[in-house]
């Protein structure tokens, strides 16, 4: 049943795309998708951490004792999250400001621990990297899609640029907290419909 690296990668893009198929990592999904830019930024940050933590966990999987497995995974993940945090502060500060508290919270994103536990701790380095990359990109895509929808409807803009005429009255519900939930719920429904075929 061994899959090729490509398969490991591709599955994250559709078959197991979080948060639609694997209902994981909802908090950042809901919180930062007010705009596309935020969504993609968050996705990329998560993907970065995911790839590296997967690699490291996979590389260390033989020497980590089972009892402190979770703690070790968390250290690995937290390290990379902090790396991302520092890098973002240094290079994309405005985005860091917008994503705020959610960057450190990548550390508790269940996708990361989930993949470390379910995949990286059982598979080789390359496969884990491919898996991390696939899931990470899938997550980014999902966040981007949700971000676009909410930004276009809720603010009438896309990447900050107005897409409708001035007469458009934005459906600001979409950028509010409840809008995030409803929007994600409806998208999940669409994904379920699409998955049927």
């Amino acid at each position, binding site marked *: 049943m061994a899959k090729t690296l490509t398969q490991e990668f591709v599955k994250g893009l559709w078959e197991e795309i979080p948060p639609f198929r694997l209902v994981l990592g909802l908090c950042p999904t809901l919180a930062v998708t007010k705009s596309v830019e935020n969504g993609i930024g968050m996705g990329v940050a998560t993907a970065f951490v995911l790839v590296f933590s997967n690699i490291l966990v996979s590389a260390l999987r033989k020497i980590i004792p089972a009892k402190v497995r979770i703690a070790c995974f968390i250290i690995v993940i937290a390290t990379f999250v902090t790396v991302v945090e520092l890098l973002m502060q240094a290079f994309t500060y405005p985005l860091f400001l917008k994503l705020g508290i959610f960057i450190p919270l990548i550390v508790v994103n269940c996708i990361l621990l989930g993949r470390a536990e379910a995949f990286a701790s059982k598979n080789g380095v390359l496969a884990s990297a491919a898996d991390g990359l696939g899931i990470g990109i899938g997550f980014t895509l999902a966040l981007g899609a949700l971000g676009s929808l909410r930004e276009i409807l809720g603010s009438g803009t896309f990447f900050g640029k107005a897409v409708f005429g001035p007469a458009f009255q934005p*459906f*600001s*519900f*979409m950028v509010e907290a409840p809008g995030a939930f409803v929007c994600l719920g409806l998208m999940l429904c669409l994904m379920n419909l699409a998955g049927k075929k």
Partner: protein
Amino acid sequence: MVDQKKFTVSHAPFWHDGSCIRSRSYHTMLAALPAVLFGVVRYGMPAVGVISLAVSSAMIWEYVMNRIMRRDITIGDGNAALIGLIFAMLVPASSPWWMVIIGTFVAIVVAKQIYGGIGGNPFHPALVAVAMLMLSWKDLFDFDAALVNYEFDFAMAYPLAALKHFGTAAVENFTPGALLMGNQIGAVGTPFGLGLIAGGLYLIVRGFVRWEISLSFLAGIFVTAFIFHQADSARYAGPAFHLFTGYTLMGAFFLATEDSSSPVHFIPMLIYGAGGGILTMLIRNIGIHVDGVVFALLVMNIANPLLDKIRPKALGKVF
């Protein structure tokens, strides 16, 4: 096979008291009629437009969803029309057409049909719709601004907004009698207090709504408003004012009593109604929203499943 005679076999009971969803919906609409007609008279053609658009679009959404979900077409039961009508009663007469359509979409599709249609919705569909629209288009829901084109022979201010911004002094000239007679501005179907009360009494007497909820809701408002008023009469208006303004009466008779989002047992009904009333007053007096009925009732809708767990011990129940 024409000659073959086959009996109908079913389970007891074989009689039925004749009630059905359809008559329930239509009687509720009938009860809303006085207030609606008043709104039509007061606001003219725009009100007619909003009402007819809301009712028809609600029915169309229902039909579309029935088809998509491949279920029986249920527009005949009048529930969609009723939701459309109640929604129309809650929005200003000046609402643009697209807002009405989005509103009925939210009410019928998001708040009702995806929960499996009538009976499944945990929230009152019209309330969800109005809450969403209020969040999105605050300006359109600012009755003062929305109804600026009208000219009436009474104070042209939305009483609750005036109260919020300028304190009780600003609303002194709203007498309970005038409020009851509809001498206030507001949404399409809410100003005419007397009509709403008449409709509500009709529904209660006919047993289509539960008096416990309506009464306790009004009582909750009355008592809370009274306490606030006693504490600081300069900032907080009296109970009569609160009873007859905004969505209060509408809430008591048409919103809080929606079947599927309200409790059925006696004590829960009282708590539910009173809780809604108290919360409404808290929002009106210390929250940021001008009228608290919508959100207060949504909160109570959420609490409904838990409240309804309070129930009498069943006959012979053993523990």
